C-alpha cells in the first residue's frame, strides 16, 4: 500500500529526534559542569601548594627521614592501585581508558610475580573488575561527579591503613588528568609512599628561613603527611571529575551531531518514498483514465 514505507520512516525520524533532544540536553549540562569542576580544581590548588611548601620547609629542617609514608619498602610484594573512574557511562572512552591503563599495569605486576590490591572509585571500575573476576579490596562510589574533601579523606584513610598494615607495599594512583576542555590524559602516578624526591628536593628559592617548630619538625610532619596524601588524592579526584564532564560533553556532542545527520538522511529517504508513491498514484490515475477513454471510444465506434 502506498504510504506504508513513508509512515515507518516518519516514526523513525521522530524517535531519533527525541534521542537527539536528550543527548543535546546532556551535552549542555556537561558543558556547564566542566566550568564548575574547573573552578573547584582551581580553588583546591592553594591548599596543596601551601602544604607542599610547609613540607619543603620541614624537610629543610631535617624532618621526616623515619616516616613510613616517605620511605619506599625494600621489597614490593603487593602492588596497590587506586583507580578513579565515573559512576555513569555515556562519556565516550573516559572510563575504559582509565580501566585499560590500570589493568595493563596490574597485569605487569602479576607477570613480575607480585600480588595486586585494588581500591576502586566509581561504579564503572567496580563492575568491570568484579565482572572479570579480579579481587577488589575496597570500592567507593556515589561522588565521582562532585567529590568532596570528605570523600577523599575516607579513601585516603583506607589506602594508608592498608599500607601501614603492610597489606600493600606501594600504591599507584590511576586517574584522568585534566589539561583543558580539549585535552585530558590518563596518568598513573606513585601515590604511597610519597615520592621523596618530589616532596623534599624543592626548588630552593633563595636561602631558607630558619623556622621555629612546635611541637618538633618530626611531630608536625607526622601529622602533615596524611593531610598531604589526602590533598593529593582530592586533587586527582577533582581532575577526574572535570575530565569526566569534558569527556561526556564531547561524547554527547558527537551523538547529537550523528542524530542530526541521521535525521537528514532519513528525511531524504522519506521524501523520495513519498514522491515515488505520488508518482505511482498519478500513473495509476492516468493509466485508469486512458483505459476508460479507450473503452469509451471503443463503444462509440460500435
Amino acid at each position: 500500500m502506498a504510504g506504508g514505507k513513508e509512515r515507518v520512516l516518519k516514526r523513525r525520524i521522530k524517535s531519533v529526534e527525541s534521542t537527539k533532544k536528550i543527548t543535546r540536553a546532556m551535552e549542555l549540562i556537561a558543558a556547564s559542569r566542566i566550568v564548575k569542576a574547573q573552578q573547584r580544581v582551581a580553588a583546591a590548588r592553594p591548599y596543596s601548594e601551601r602544604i607542599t611548601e610547609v613540607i619543603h620547609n620541614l624537610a629543610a629542617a631535617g624532618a621526616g627521614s623515619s616516616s613510613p609514608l616517605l620511605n619506599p619498602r625494600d621489597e614490593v610484594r603487593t602492588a596497590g592501585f587506586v583507580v578513579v573512574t565515573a559512576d555513569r557511562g555515556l562519556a565516550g572512552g573516559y572510563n575504559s581508558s582509565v580501566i585499560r591503563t590500570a589493568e595493563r599495569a596490574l597485569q605487569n605486576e602479576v607477570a613480575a610475580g607480585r600480588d595486586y590490591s585494588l581500591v576502586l572509585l566509581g561504579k564503572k571500575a567496580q563492575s568491570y573488575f568484579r565482572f572479570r573476576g579480579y579481587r577488589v579490596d575496597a570500592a567507593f562510589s556515589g561522588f565521582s561527579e562532585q567529590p568532596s574533601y570528605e570523600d577523599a579523606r575516607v579513601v585516603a584513610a583506607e589506602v594508608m591503613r592498608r599500607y601501614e598494615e603492610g597489606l600493600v607495599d606501594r600504591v599507584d594512583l590511576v586517574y584522568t588528568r585534566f589539561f583543558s576542555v580539549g585535552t585530558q590524559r590518563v596518568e598513573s602516578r606513585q601515590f604511597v609512599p610519597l615520592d621523596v624526591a618530589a616532596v623534599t628536593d624543592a626548588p630552593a628559592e633563595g636561602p631558607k628561613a630558619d623556622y621555629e617548630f612546635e611541637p618538633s619538625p618530626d611531630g608536625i610532619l607526622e601529622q602533615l603527611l596524611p593531610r598531604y596524601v589526602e590533598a593529593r588524592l582530592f586533587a586527582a579526584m577533582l581532575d577526574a571529575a572535570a575530565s569526566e564532564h569534558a569527556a561526556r560533553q564531547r561524547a554527547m556532542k558527537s551523538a547529537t551531531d550523528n542524530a542530526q545527520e541521521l535525521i537528514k538522511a532519513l528525511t531524504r529517504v522519506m521524501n523520495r518514498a513519498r514522491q515515488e508513491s505520488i508518482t505511482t498514484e498519478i500513473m495509476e490515475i492516468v493509466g485508469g483514465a486512458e483505459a476508460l477513454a479507450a473503452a469509451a471510444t471503443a463503444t462509440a465506434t460500435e
Partner: protein
Amino acid sequence: MALQVELVSPERILYTGQAEMVICRTVGGGDIAFLTGHAPFIGALEIHEVRIKLVDGGEEKVAVHGGFVEVSHDVVTILSDVAELAGQIDVERARRAKETAEHDLRETHDADTEAALRRATLRLDLAS
C-alpha cells in the same frame, strides 16, 4: 604594616585579610600570638578557636579543627581540613553532634568520639 592572614581549606580559601594579631593554640605548646615581625614559625594546631584581631579593631573567630599554621615574612597561613568562621557555624547541627558524641562517650571511650565532642563544643562556644 599589618599581618597578611590566609585561612585555607582543601576545597577553597576561606578567608584572607589584614590583621593586627593572630592567636592560636598549638599542639603541646599552648596559645601563641603572632604580631608583625614574628620569627618564621610552623606549628600543628589543636582543635581550638583561632582569633584574628583585625586592623580596624574588630575580631574574627574561627573554629579550627586541627591543622597547621605557617608564619613567615608577616604572612600567616592557616591550613585546616575543617575550619569554620564563627558566623558560618550551623548551631543546630553542632548541638545535635554534641548530643550524639556525649551519648556515645557514655558507652565507649575512643579518640574519634572525643574529638567529635571537642569539635562540637568548640563550634557551640564560638557561635554563641
